[in-house]
């Protein structure tokens, strides 16, 4: 038997057969979108030959050793003249009878490289050793390969390809067959990974989310304008500017319709909420969707416990018909990290929705925009949905994507929902105003930093006279934060409840809540408009006094969390709207003014954006690995910590996890192990690394690899009976969201 895998044991023939089955599934499912015949031909060849190099004696022996070790077997190793183990993917191209196919030389290179790099390795293929292995060993195994795989192989094999797979000759974007290469290599990755996981490469292909959505929308008398627009422009790229509450989500689903789709949002909480909405039977009821972000397994566990592992795995493999995800899951490809072709090729036959693009920082937005251009280049489609679109983003897309490929739509309500009052004082000094309204109404306070939130909370709490005051910010451990988020929603939904919630911008986009009054520190306009969305969410403005109070003095977080230029310019623009009823059109005008190139000229913000665009457009491929790309995109300098008190409560569990022996053959054992990890994760809070490092308040939990990413936070944690101030790290808190 020629082994391909050790766990479970699988022969080369079986493994390749699985890929071929998946190949047929993929072709049947999306062959009508990816219509390049050569591509399918090459992909099939790549599938058939991709693992042939595994026949090399040293590879076989390493699998045999694994089987013997983990399965208690005693299989004899193969005699071998060699000691070195060359990656099998560098050997596989030897068996290609490329002369029989008469491909163009450049197309041959596509094939060679797709196969040679179906695992990305840092080591350079060594021509000499490869040639020797082929000459002394592989040429004697041609018959074995033919018997195992039923493929054509020449009677004589010679490694004439090793120069063509050298790192410096890798196919890059200016190559005439670049798109072809991305597709062949990326789809080979997909087929290989799905087959190795014993999953289908594409699922629920005939389940059309558009149909489900239309059915759901029958509850309403007519399609909204934006929905009709999206439905009518299914085969185009869309940029849709629409007010909140216009039915944007449904529009996007109607646009995706029968195609494979990826729906992205900036925040995990909102993705979770959206996922629940789409999958729930009494709503859209589309049960075939996937959920993909760094903690999606936790949410799936909560909502779909039975199938959670499966849905998670299928989402991770990008097999779902429709996937709700954060951008870091699929938009790493513009960085061209090792293996980026996989997601890029998948997007070539998918539709991608970018919701809330205004919420990303300029660097991430730049990555997204370059990504959208690349998607358009390779045949995929995108839709940007937003309440406001900064003109600098639009300008870029207009420059790089053909005008005819994009359709713009603008859908604004006439409803006036807010009247704002600008107060030139600090929010702390206005506690009385806040308390007065909190007595009989729902009042939301949003400030810019955690420390300010705690300050305001204490100020209000000391003078509350019976008014209910609550606090929510990011410095709670995960499970407590989830509890508070649930509470604020319940509070907002309960008509009889009155009181005050003091929060940070954490609630800006993630939570679907509606309050009567908003007191907020001034933040940049886009963030400010998001905050407005939490007050009079869907209601017409009907008060004698303003429902939004904006504080402009001694505002926290300027220059650290928010760009100072943008904040100053926001303030200047907003001043024209004091005590005026705010129309949707006004918001668009303000954003257009704020984020225009003239207005930003010379600002650090614009420089960051332009530099990022420039960097990503000219990036050297294959210099980053996947994790490095992930870090760039998430822009995370965060560490996960467990406050000391919590740590002591769960120390037992942590010790158990640290020394737990996993039995890889026992699904329950693996499951238990993962559950331990999740329980621990639920007790963590994430804080900026530089803060933690600088103040020397963290100590590592483990010297060993397991849990080495977690730290103990040597600070007080205040949370009891569903209430508290969260992590108290004194001064340190001032720069945390």
């Amino acid at each position, binding site marked *: 038997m020629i082994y391909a895998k050790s766990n479970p044991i699988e022969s080369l023939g079986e493994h390749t057969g699985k890929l071929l089955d998946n190949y047929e599934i993929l072709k049947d499912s999306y062959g009508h979108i990816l219509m390049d015949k050569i591509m399918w031909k090459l992909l099939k060849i790549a599938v058939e030959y991709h693992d042939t190099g595994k026949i090399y004696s040293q590879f076989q022996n390493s699998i045999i050793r694994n089987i013997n070790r983990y399965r208690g077997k005693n299989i004899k190793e193969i005699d071998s003249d060699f000691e070195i183990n060359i990656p099998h993917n560098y050997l596989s191209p030897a068996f290609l009878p490329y002369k029989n196919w008469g491909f163009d*030389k450049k197309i041959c290179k596509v094939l060679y490289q797709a196969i040679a790099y179906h695992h990305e390795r840092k080591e350079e293929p060594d*021509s*000499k050793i490869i*040639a020797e292995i082929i*000459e002394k060993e592989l*040429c004697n195994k041609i018959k074995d390969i033919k018997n195992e795989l039923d493929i054509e192989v*020449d009677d*004589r094999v*010679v*490694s*004439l*390809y*090793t*120069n*063509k797979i*050298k790192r*410096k*000759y890798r196919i890059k974007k200016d190559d005439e067959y670049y798109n072809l290469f991305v597709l062949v290599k990326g789809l080979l990755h997909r087929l290989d990974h799905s087959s190795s996981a014993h999953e289908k490469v594409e699922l629920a292909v005939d389940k059309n989310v558009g149909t489900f959505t239309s059915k759901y929308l029958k509850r309403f008398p007519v399609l909204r304008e934006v929905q009709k627009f999206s439905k009518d422009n299914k085969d185009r790229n869309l940029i849709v500017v629409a007010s909140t509450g216009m039915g944007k989500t449904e529009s996007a689903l109607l646009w995706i319709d029968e195609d494979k789709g990826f729906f992205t949002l900036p925040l995990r909480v909102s993705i979770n909420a959206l996922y629940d909405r789409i999958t729930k039977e009494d709503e859209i009821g589309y049960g075939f969707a996937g959920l993909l972000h760094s903690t999606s397994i936790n949410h799936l566990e909560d909502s779909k416990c039975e199938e959670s592992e499966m849905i998670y795995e299928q989402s991770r493999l990008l097999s779902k018909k429709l996937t709700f995800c954060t951008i870091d899951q699929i938009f790493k490809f513009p960085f061209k990290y090792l293996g980026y072709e996989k997601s890029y090729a998948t997007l070539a036959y998918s539709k991608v929705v970018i919701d809330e693009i205004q919420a990303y920082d300029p660097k991430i937005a730049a990555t997204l925009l370059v990504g959208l251009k690349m998607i358009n280049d390779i045949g995929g489609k995108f839709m940007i949905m937003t309440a406001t679109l900064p003109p600098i983003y639009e300008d870029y897309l207009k420059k790089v994507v053909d005008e005819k490929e994009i359709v713009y739509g603008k859908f604004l309500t006439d409803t006036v929902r807010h009247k704002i009052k600008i107060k030139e004082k600090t929010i702390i000094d206005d506690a009385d105003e806040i308390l007065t309204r909190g007595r009989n109404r729902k009042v939301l306070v949003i400030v810019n930093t955690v420390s300010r939130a705690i300050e305001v909370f204490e100020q209000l709490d000391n003078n509350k006279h019976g008014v209910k005051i609550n606090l929510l910010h990011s410095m709670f451990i995960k499970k407590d934060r989830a509890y508070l988020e649930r509470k604020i929603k319940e509070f907002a939904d309960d008509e009889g409840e009155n009181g005050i919630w003091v929060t940070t911008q954490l609630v800006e986009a993630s939570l679907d809540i509606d309050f009567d009054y908003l007191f907020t520190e001034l933040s940049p306009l886009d963030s400010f408009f998001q905050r407005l969305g939490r007050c009079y969410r869907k209601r017409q403005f009907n008060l004698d006094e303003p429902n939004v109070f904006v504080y402009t003095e001694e505002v926290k977080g300027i220059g650290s969390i928010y760009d100072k230029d943008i904040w100053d310019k926001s303030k200047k623009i907003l001043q024209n709207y004091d005590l005026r009823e705010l129309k949707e059109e006004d918001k668009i005008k303000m954003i257009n003014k704020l984020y225009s190139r003239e207005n930003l000229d010379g600002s650090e913000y614009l420089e960051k954006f332009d530099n990022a665009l420039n960097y990503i457009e000219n990036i050297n491929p294959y210099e980053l690995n996947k994790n490095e790309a992930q870090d760039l995109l998430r822009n995370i300098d965060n560490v996960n910590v467990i406050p000391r008190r919590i740590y002591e409560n769960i120390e037992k569990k942590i010790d158990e996890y640290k020394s737990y022996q996993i039995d890889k053959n026992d699904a329950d054992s693996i499951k238990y192990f993962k559950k331990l990890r999740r329980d621990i994760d639920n007790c963590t809070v994430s804080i900026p690394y530089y803060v933690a490092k600088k103040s020397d308040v963290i100590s590592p939990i483990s010297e060993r690899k397991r849990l080495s990413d977690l730290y103990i936070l040597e600070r007080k944690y205040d949370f009891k009976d569903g209430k508290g101030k969260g992590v108290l790290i004194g001064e340190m808190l001032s720069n945390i969201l």
Partner: protein
Amino acid sequence: MEVLKLDLFQESACYKKPFAFKVGETYPLPPYSTVKGMLHKILKAKEFIPMSISIQGDYDSKFVDYQSMYFYKDKDITKMPLDMHLLHNVKLIIHVKAERQILDGIVGGITGLDEYLSLGRREDLVRINEVKFVGLKKYNPFDEGKNYFIKYPIYIPVDKTDEELTGINYRLNWKYKIVEGLRQWEKINVIYVEKGEELSDESEIVIDDDTKDLVCFNL
């Protein structure tokens, strides 16, 4: 067709690059013009004699010699110490393709030399180990069941291959015309490819029937 194969040795040599004024940098192998010059000297030629050349070879090491160098400064001669890069123990294999009578002339010239031969600078003496006629044949890796790996570093003209070869690109002098009293050089773009590099079947691989050395003519 038979070509002439010369097996040469130099204890030290500097094949100075043009415009290397501050340091006497050397090419790793003599450029075409230098070899052509030596052959023309052997032939006592007064004008260019048509021929093609293939140059390969190796050396043990490089060293630096600190010497006086004489320059023109306006009309005066001045001198200045200069680092000269020198190759040590140079082994060269030169193939020459030309009409038979020219090749015979080279053989005759070598046997009847009236002065020592040099290659590079005047003081870079050449020992001739062997001169002989060899045949050429194509090497097909499939028939042989073996890849061809380059045995000695060699100049491969860029327009003779579409292969992705790893090496150093040079623009070597070949021959000149005199225009208004100045030599105007015809250049040939080559890649200097190190030993151990693999040749695929995309370029035609030609070897001699003597010790199966690769042959890559400049023209």
